[in-house]
C-alpha cells in the first residue's frame, strides 16, 4: 500500500490568525482516517488546502503522489470532497447536477454509476426533482453523491452526517464502508465521536492548527483506558481543591477519569469527607469522547473546572 495523502509542514494564515501551524500527516491507501478537533481547530482549512480551495502559505500536500498545487489536475481527479456547507445549484435536478459534476471531471455517459450512487443513497425517487425541493438531509446526500461521481480513490467527508437522520446516516455509512472495503481511502471529519470510533482505523486530533494526537483508534482508546465517573452534586457542594483539580465539568456534571474500578471507593470517601452529597452518578467505559477531551485538555485548553 502506498501513501494516499501526504501533508508536510503545512502552514496557513488568515490575516493574523494562524489556521494551520505546520501540520504533517501521512494517510495510507485504503485507510479510514478520522480528522477530529474542536471548531476552529483547522480541519476544514486543511481539507480546503488539500482540495485546492485554499492555498497553503508553506508546506506541501500530495494526493497519491500528485502535488495539489503544481500538479493540481491529477490531484483533483483523484479526490472527492463532500463540503461541510450545505450548498446546491438551484437551477438543476439531482440527475442534472450529477451529470454536470461528472462532466467537470471529464466523464461522460456516466449514468450507470450515477444510478448506483442514487440507489445507495436512497435518492432514486428524487433523481428528476429540482435541488430546491429537497429536504436538508437529501441535499446533504446529493453532496455525497457529487463527491463520488468520478469514483475518486480518495474521499474526503467534511462532517457529512450533520443534519442527516439516523436511518439515512446508517445507510450512508454502509455505503462508505463498502467503498472503503473496495479500496477507497476515506478521510472523515465529524463531531459525532461515536461515528469516528466505530469507523476510523486511525485518528488525528487537531487543535489550534496543530496535530495534538495521531494514532490508531485502538491505541488512543488504550492510552486513556479506564472508566469515567460523572457526578451531579447537590448544591451548595464545593469540591475540595485536590478533587477539583482532577475533575472536568461536562454538561453540569463533574467528570473524573479513573484508571480502574478500584479507584471509585477512595473518590467516594473523599467526597463524603468533604460533605458533598451525590444526586446522580454514572459510570462509563472510556470512549473516544473521553480521549478527545483528555487530549484537548492536555494540549492546554481552558478546561472548565468543577
Amino acid at each position, binding site marked *: 500500500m502506498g501513501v494516499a495523502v501526504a501533508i508536510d509542514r503545512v502552514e496557513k494564515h488568515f490575516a493574523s490568525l494562524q489556521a494551520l501551524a505546520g501540520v504533517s500527516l501521512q494517510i495510507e491507501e485504503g485507510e479510514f482516517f478520522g480528522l477530529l478537533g474542536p471548531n476552529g481547530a483547522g480541519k476544514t482549512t486543511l481539507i480546503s488546502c488539500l482540495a485546492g480551495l485554499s*492555498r497553503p502559505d508553506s508546506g506541501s500536500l500530495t494526493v497519491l503522489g500528485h502535488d495539489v498545487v503544481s500538479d493540481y489536475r491529477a490531484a483533483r481527479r483523484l479526490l472527492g470532497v463532500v463540503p461541510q456547507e450545505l450548498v446546491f445549484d438551484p437551477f*438543476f435536478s439531482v440527475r442534472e447536477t450529477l451529470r454536470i459534476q461528472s462532466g467537470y471531471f471529464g466523464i461522460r455517459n456516466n449514468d450507470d454509476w450515477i444510478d448506483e450512487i442514487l440507489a445507495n443513497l436512497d435518492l432514486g425517487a428524487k433523481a428528476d426533482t429540482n435541488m430546491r425541493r429537497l429536504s436538508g438531509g437529501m441535499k446533504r446526500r446529493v453532496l455525497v453523491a457529487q463527491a463520488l461521481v468520478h469514483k475518486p480513490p480518495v474521499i474526503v467527508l467534511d462532517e457529512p452526517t450533520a443534519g442527516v437522520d439516523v436511518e439515512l446516516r446508517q445507510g450512508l455509512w454502509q455505503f462508505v464502508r463498502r467503498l472503503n472495503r473496495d479500496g477507497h481511502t476515506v478521510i472523515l471529519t465529524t463531531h459525532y465521536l461515536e461515528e469516528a470510533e466505530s469507523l476510523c482505523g486511525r485518528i488525528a486530533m487537531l487543535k489550534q492548527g496543530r496535530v495534538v494526537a495521531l494514532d490508531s483508534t485502538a491505541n488512543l482508546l488504550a492510552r486513556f483506558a479506564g472508566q469515567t465517573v460523572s457526578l451531579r452534586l447537590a448544591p451548595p457542594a464545593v469540591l475540595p481543591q485536590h478533587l477539583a483539580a482532577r475533575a472536568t465539568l461536562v454538561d453540569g456534571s463533574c467528570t473524573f477519569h479513573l484508571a480502574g474500578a478500584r479507584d471509585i471507593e477512595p473518590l467516594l470517601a473523599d467526597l463524603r469527607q468533604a460533605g458533598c452529597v451525590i444526586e446522580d452518578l454514572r459510570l462509563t467505559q472510556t470512549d473516544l469522547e473521553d480521549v478527545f477531551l483528555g487530549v484537548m485538555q492536555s494540549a492546554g485548553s481552558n478546561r472548565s473546572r468543577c
Partner: protein
Amino acid sequence: MTGFRTLLYKEVLRFWKVSFQTIAAPVLTALLYLMIFSHVLEAHVQVHGIAYTAFLIPGLVMMSALQNAFANSSSSLIQSKVTGSVVFVLLPPISYGEFFLAYVVAAMLRGLMVGAGVLLVTVWFAVPAVKAPLWILAFVVLGGAIMGALGMIAGIWADKFDQLAGFQNFLIMPLTMLSGVFYSIHSLPDFWQQVSHFNPVFYMIDGFRFGFFGVSDVAPEVSLTVVGTSFALVSAATLLLLRSGYKLRS
C-alpha cells in the same frame, strides 16, 4: 476538454432554464425603446441619410447583446459565490483558461440570442440593410466576449449583489447608453464627441452598425482595432485574476 464543454453546457442551461427572464425580458425592453424613440423621432431625424428607426435597430441589438453578455457571467458568478455552489466548479480539474473560456462563450451566446431576438421583433418596424455581415459578426462576437469577461471581473470582485449592481449601473449602463446607440456622435458638441472616443463601447456599436449600412462615424478598421485591443486587455486581466485565485480560492 470535457470539463470546458460541461461548464459551457451548464452555463448555457442555467440561463436557458430561466429564458423568460434572461432572453424574453431584454427583448421586450429593447422593443419598448424602439417604439417610443421611433414614434417621437422618425419623422424628424435622419442619420447618415438613414431613417431614424432603421438607424436605431442595430444600436439596440448591439446594446442588448452587450448588456446581457455582461449580466450572464456576472450574475452566474455572484450567485454561485453567495450560495457557495461555486465550490462545484473549483473542486474539479478545470484549468483557469477553460474556466474563462466557458463563462465568456456562454455570455456571448446569451448576448447573441438576445441580439437575434431584438432583431427579430424590430424588423416589423424597419428592415435595416445588411451590407457587410462579417463586420456584424466580428463586432457582436468580440463585443459579447469583452462584456462576458468584464462580467467575470465584476462577479469575482463583488461580494454582494449591491456591489455588482453598482458596477452594472454606474459603469456598464452609462458606457452602453452613451455609446451612440440612439444618435450619431457627430450630432454631439465637440467636447462630448471627444469624450465618446474614449468609450470602447462606442466602437463596438459603430462598427456593428457599419455592417448594416456601410457608413459609420469612424472607419470600421479603427473600431475593430480598438475593440480587439480591449478584448485582449480585459481577457488578460480576467485570466490574471483567475490564475491568482482572487476571491475564489482563499
